[in-house]
């Protein structure tokens, strides 16, 4: 089959690789119809995530048709059309049973590596480094889905691939980011990053009843999309205006009730600190540059919530702990527990409350994956989200 492989820093290549086979009775094989490039794939692309191997099949946002099931998978049948959540979760461990599937205790065969890095291991993830399992990803014609009796959700025929594909990651991820904000009536929520996850965080904040939603980015097109499609009531272009001052102005001096970091480890900023962090990162003195996170903490109102859904991998400098302690801030984070959002968010799509396809700007065949990464990475042609058609 054809699969998009990581071949080193800034190099992906569609190669012929062997077809997947069932390895366990709880596996299923999916023929991928649509798959997407995630912002977090760009961290792999840029070489910021350790334990990648040349030849790894990428991709954790995908959907398709079931073509084979193990004998332990009774809920799926050959021919079913399904969306697959990016966290691989067993459904049996204490974490899964508590609904925190991205913390599954059984799905990472390389748990020891993650444990060395982070103290304890989270779940395994499709196509996302060896420290998170070494699973082949879904930017391919076929993919093996472990614990297929727990993960994949069947989707109705009247919804298109593009309407349901993002249930695999970015819609639930944005939704969880908004949910962690404990949005109350009248709430003001600021979102750093108007990339796909940021847009879904804004759209979800609106679904959850936020009164004002402020989008922060540097690309004018993205800010326009945030305002016209994702429900942002105000936008701040940080290359044109000071974010802190603008937020004070927009919130009567209080600061936003909740701040969402949908940027993560490769943040940009219009300040000398950016150059400092960039240098430290290059010298391996810190792994992640938390410019958006620092700003989100600084801007958040006293007693507010900072919700972190951007991806961080390691260590950061100048973390403003003093602001958190002295101003009673709550910091919440997590890889999305996608499984628990699948059903309720599919229902929202079916009811027409949201059409997630609004984020898509580019549609390419799987064979053009490398072009897709380049478009997304360099924001060429106002790229916001690339969907690869595998079939």
């Amino acid at each position, binding site marked *: 089959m054809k*699969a998009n492989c990581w071949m080193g820093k800034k190099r992906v290549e569609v190669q012929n690789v062997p077809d997947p086979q069932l390895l366990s009775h709880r596996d299923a094989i999916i023929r991928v119809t649509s798959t997407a490039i995630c912002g977090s794939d760009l961290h792999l692309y840029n070489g910021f995530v350790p334990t990648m191997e040349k030849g*790894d099949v990428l991709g954790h946002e995908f959907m398709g048709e079931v073509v084979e099931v193990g004998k332990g998978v009774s809920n799926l049948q050959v021919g079913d059309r399904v969306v697959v959540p990016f966290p691989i979760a067993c459904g*049996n461990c204490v974490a899964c049973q508590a609904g925190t599937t991205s913390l599954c205790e059984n799905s990472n065969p390389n748990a020891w590596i993650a444990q060395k890095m982070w103290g304890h291991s989270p779940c395994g993830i499709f196509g996302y480094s060896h420290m998170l399992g*070494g699973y082949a990803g879904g930017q391919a014609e076929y993919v093996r889905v472990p614990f297929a009796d727990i993960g994949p959700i069947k989707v109705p025929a009247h919804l298109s691939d593009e309407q349901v594909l993002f249930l695999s990651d970015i819609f639930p991820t944005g939704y969880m980011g908004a949910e962690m904000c404990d949005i109350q009536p009248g709430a003001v929520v600021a979102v750093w990053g108007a990339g796909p996850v940021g847009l879904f965080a804004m759209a979800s904040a609106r679904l959850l009843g936020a009164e004002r939603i402020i989008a922060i980015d540097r690309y004018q097109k993205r800010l326009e999309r945030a305002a016209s499609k994702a429900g942002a009531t105000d936008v701040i272009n940080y290359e044109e205006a000071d974010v802190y001052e603008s937020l004070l102005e927009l919130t009567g001096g209080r600061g936003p009730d909740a701040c969402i970091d949908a940027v993560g480890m490769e943040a940009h900023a219009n300040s000398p600190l950016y150059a400092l962090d960039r240098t430290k990162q290059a010298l391996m003195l810190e792994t992640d540059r938390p410019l958006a996170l620092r700003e989100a903490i600084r801007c958040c109102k006293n007693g507010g919530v900072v919700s972190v859904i951007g991806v961080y991998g390691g260590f950061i400098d100048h973390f403003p702990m003093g602001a958190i302690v002295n101003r009673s801030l709550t910091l919440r984070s997590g890889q999305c527990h996608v499984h628990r959002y699948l059903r309720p968010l599919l229902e929202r799509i079916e009811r027409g409350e949201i059409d997630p396809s609004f984020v898509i700007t580019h549609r390419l065949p799987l064979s053009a994956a490398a072009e897709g990464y380049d478009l997304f990475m360099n924001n060429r042609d106002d790229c916001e989200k690339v969907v690869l058609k595998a079939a």
Partner: protein
Amino acid sequence: MEREQVALAGFETVASRRESVQGRTRWLGALSVGLGLVKIAAPTQLTRVLGMRNSPSTRRVMAGLGLGEIAAGLCLLSLSRSQTAQKLVQPIHVVRTISINRPPETIYHFWRDLANLPRFMAHLESVTVQNGTSTWRAKAPAGMTVEWQAEVTLDRPNQAIAWRSLEGASVPNRGVVRFTPAPGGRGTEVTVELKYDPPGGELTAALAKLFGEEPSQQIAGDLRRLKQVLETGGLAHSDASIHRGMHAARPAGADEKTVILGREEVQS
């Protein structure tokens, strides 16, 4: 309790072996220093005895070699006294624990059927039980196989099992596993304690570590696999984990050799 302590008593052979290793190290160190002194003090005589040409340059080389020899000797002498040398031949003691979302009874019964152990202990090939004695076959480093016999020395239903190898095992070992209910209804805390005495003790362990066979990591991996088997009904395989060593995360080709521990019948 008394029986449990018996099961975990120390290894008689270790102290005497440490003595002899220390003795040999000291003797070798003294010999080196002596040889070095001769090379420096009497280079002319030494070169003659060895049948070498007696020139200023050979004498200089000889003196240089003598200094090197003395340095090596002094290192050996200090090593024979240090903790390091003693540690190198000590038996290995590993304690590892994991929480499993199953009641103690289930885990106890699974473990008590020793034939189940190779399903999650990656290095075991088989365990067979006959007349109260079990025969264990395990993969050893460098593609070798070791086999030994063992007996269960403590059997406390739903609480603990201890075992030890019988006379003649090439790697004398003993172990105990305890099953304790986890607080808050979170299943069972399973704690394994192993003591074993490979030839070379910690030195072997340190070398093995270089090849990715470090004992405590091995046991931690075994416990994770036990948890997978008991909680999910099988092992979690990734596309990379079914290969020995590093392998790209992509499906294996028909001609590639994979290692799938406890592979069940997967077809529907």
